[in-house]
């Protein structure tokens, strides 16, 4: 009998009436990368939270290296050698890398801390596993990729043998994703075992040995990745056939809806994040901004939506100048915004779903009159969005938004923004954290907006998404346009070069 390093048998976990895990079994062999695939809300994070000691299963058993164990807290999980790299990092922003890694296990020298010794150990670990970090840098100053490496080191510092990665590539640039895959291979070669929660089928094919597929809390199957196609795995995940290609017909763009002229915007450090940026989005057109994270996309979106002031330049919607207009006014003029950070900007976590669905329109009839809220109308409106966009939660529209899974939160936000029938839809990373089935649906809805004559400004770090969805692609680097090209004429390498700063064809500026 082959011994599994981790085995979970018949796990059942319910939250109220929602059966998050319904008799799920999972097995991980030593030195193996097991992918855990499932739609959002399918129960993957719950299952792994049970393994990591954050939740207790209602029934079922867990075996580590053949012995039955009771994992009552993350500390116990750590002692058993299980570590988790969370999707939303658990780092203290004004502490250094070293301080974060030793947090909870502070090395003492008499009554003071021996940070130098810890830093040394961290340096050794980081060299051994190829995890490049600066032990003395503060978390708030390092890149997301390095922050993730700090999370990994936290686990290795505690001698984890089994590492659980929760949607690790959701926050990385394409280059950082390649680095992470190399890191994972390195960990395996050092004898670790990995469980990878993801719904990026391409990555599963590239790096995983086996894949366990979960749907709506139930186990569908465990397949050997080399024997299965992406198509097959996707279909097992959603339970029906999936089309990977977006059905988009050619369309003549109409009059301009959004006109941005010579826009310059300061970034959070005080220097110019966007310089002399000009752009037009017409009705019935999807313009995609292609660029590596941090090259001015955030500044562009914040200036257009009104979240920050511009230094110079103008912004016009349907011929009206909104450069100095308030956010509420811009919303009124027909701008919808799917924000980059759904937890910071997109939702009020302590508000229920129905309270969140009216976040921009609460002041308008029929949702309120004479300053009083109309609960009935609000509830009906929220229910419609939840049904249309398949937002799953434990208590329907009365669930607190913070209790929804990441993917369902995203669906709720998208539903809210599309329901307003905006003239201009600004979608930033609209399908971040969503599974294949939801991505397909959201892409379809965005194309529908465009076909109905709306203007769409798409900002995405997924180059595939930009290439597939856009009619026209604008590449951005260091706050300036580096290229503009029609999607049908573009290919990945060309756009990639433009994103990297190499001026491409069709670039109006020198």
């Amino acid at each position, binding site marked *: 009998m082959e011994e599994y390093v981790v085995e979970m048998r018949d796990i059942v976990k319910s939250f109220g009436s929602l059966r998050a895990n319904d008799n799920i079994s999972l097995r991980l062999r030593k030195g193996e990368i097991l992918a855990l695939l499932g739609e959002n809300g399918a129960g993957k994070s719950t299952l792994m939270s049970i393994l990591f000691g954050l939740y207790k299963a209602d029934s079922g058993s867990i075996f580590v290296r053949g012995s039955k164990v009771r994992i009552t807290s993350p500390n116990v999980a750590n002692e058993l050698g299980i570590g988790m790299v969370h999707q939303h990092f658990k780092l203290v922003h004004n502490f250094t890398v070293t301080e974060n890694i030793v947090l909870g296990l502070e090395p003492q020298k008499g009554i003071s801390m021996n940070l130098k010794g810890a830093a040394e150990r961290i340096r050794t670990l980081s060299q051994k596993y190829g995890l490049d970090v600066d032990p003395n840098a503060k978390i708030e100053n390092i890149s997301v990729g390095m922050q993730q490496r700090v999370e990994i080191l936290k686990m290795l510092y505690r001698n984890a043998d089994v590492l659980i990665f929760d949607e690790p590539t959701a926050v990385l640039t394409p280059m950082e994703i390649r680095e992470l895959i190399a890191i994972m291979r390195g960990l395996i070669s050092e004898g670790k075992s990995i469980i990878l929660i993801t719904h990026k089928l391409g990555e599963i094919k590239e790096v995983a040995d086996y894949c366990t597929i979960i749907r709506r809390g139930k186990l569908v199957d465990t397949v050997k990745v080399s024997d299965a196609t992406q198509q097959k795995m996707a279909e097992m995940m959603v339970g029906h056939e999936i089309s990977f290609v977006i059905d988009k017909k050619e369309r003549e763009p109409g009059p301009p809806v959004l006109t941005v002229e010579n826009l310059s915007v300061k970034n959070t450090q005080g220097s110019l994040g966007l310089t002399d940026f000009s752009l037009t989005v017409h009705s019935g057109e999807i313009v995609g901004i292609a660029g590596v994270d941090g090259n001015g996309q955030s500044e562009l979106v914040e200036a257009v939506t009104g979240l920050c002031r511009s230094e110079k330049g103008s912004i016009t919607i349907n011929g009206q100048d909104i450069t100095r207009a308030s956010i509420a006014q811009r919303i009124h003029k027909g701008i919808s915004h799917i924000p980059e950070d759904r937890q910071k*900007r997109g939702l009020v976590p302590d508000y229920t779903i129905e309270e969140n669905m009216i976040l921009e329109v*609460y002041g308008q009839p029929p949702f309120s009159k004479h300053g009083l809220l109309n609960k009935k109308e609000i509830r009906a409106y929220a229910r419609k969005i939840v049904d249309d966009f398949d937002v799953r939660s434990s208590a329907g529209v009365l669930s607190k938004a913070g209790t929804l899974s990441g993917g369902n939160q995203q669906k709720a936000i998208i539903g809210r923004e599309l329901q307003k029938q905006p003239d201009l839809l600004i979608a930033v990373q609209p399908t971040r954290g969503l599974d294949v089935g939801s991505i397909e649906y959201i892409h379809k809805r965005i194309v529908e907006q465009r076909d109905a004559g709306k203007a769409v400004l798409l900002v995405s770090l997924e180059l595939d998404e930009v290439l597939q969805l856009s009619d026209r692609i604008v590449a951005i680097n260091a706050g300036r346009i580096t290229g503009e090209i029609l999607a049908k004429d573009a290919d990945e390498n060309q756009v990639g070069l433009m994103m990297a700063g190499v001026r491409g064809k069709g670039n109006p500026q020198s």
Partner: protein
Amino acid sequence: MVSICAILLGFVAGAVLMMTSSSNPLSGFMYLFQGGLKGVSRFCNTLAYAVPLMLTGLSVSFAFQTGLFNIGAPGQMLIGGIFATSLALTLDMPRVVMLAIVISAAIAGGTLWGAIPGLLKAKFNVNEVVSGIMLNWIAYWIVYITISDNFKSATIDTESQAIPGAASLREPFLTRLTGGSNLNLGILIALIATALVVFILAKTVMGYEMKAVGFNSSAAEYGGINVAKNAILAMAISGALSGLAGLTFYMGYSNNMRIGIMPSQGFDGIAVALLANSNPIGVLLSAFFFAILQTGKGFMNAMMPIPPEIADTIIAVIIYFAAASKLIEINMDRIKGFVLRRMGKAKAKKGGQ
């Protein structure tokens, strides 16, 4: 649930202390509650004592609900009180008019004193705790100067003149009805204020905006809500409530303003709000509960050798546990299991008989 656990733990602590002064805790608590509740007169006195606490509790919890810490409640009480007192001692009009004037004055004073920290926070990001505390002391000295220069009582240097009956919240009919207690019109003010607060927070656009700003100001901003305006508005309303607390204390429960005293009800309001978890109805109950402990301790001390400070200790322990609510939540499963097992044992015993 957490609040109940906190209260029970407070009582346990009180019981332990009572035993150390060689007293029977059960008798101790019996006298404590009798002192607060036995008879119409005592009950109504407790109720009257609770009124300013209800209002400051509402004030602090309203601010909490909108993400702000109104530690300036004492200052708002003082300014609301001094505005009302000054007008009461200067104008002479029919009762109904006087009442309208003093209530408006108290609201105006409290609103002003609450809006200032709100404005400083919204425009300059000044921490409202710091500005609140500073304004408490500015209010303290404003009251000192105003009363000393203008409204000093003929007999006692540190008190203002007595509030004329026409302006006072004391209603002779009520006093007679409740056996000579201190119950006054303030209770009506407290109840109406509570109803208004519940209404605003649950049903109005204004309440929706304020709560959104309190829960997640980034998302509120994204949704087009004016964060600065709502922060100021929330602090202003919170101030108005504390201003009313000042009115009910100085011109209802009491009959004048004393200088050189920072009203403790201002700070106690924080404890009341904490125990009630910022729920408005909970605040009423929580304030009444605190009042029982305060008014009952004298009687307890008269009947048994238990120092009245025990009541303050109980309150302190309750506040400690209410604040450390996380601690109780983490152990909630254990507590539930313990209670259920005890109940199961009792049932089994009964069944066996």
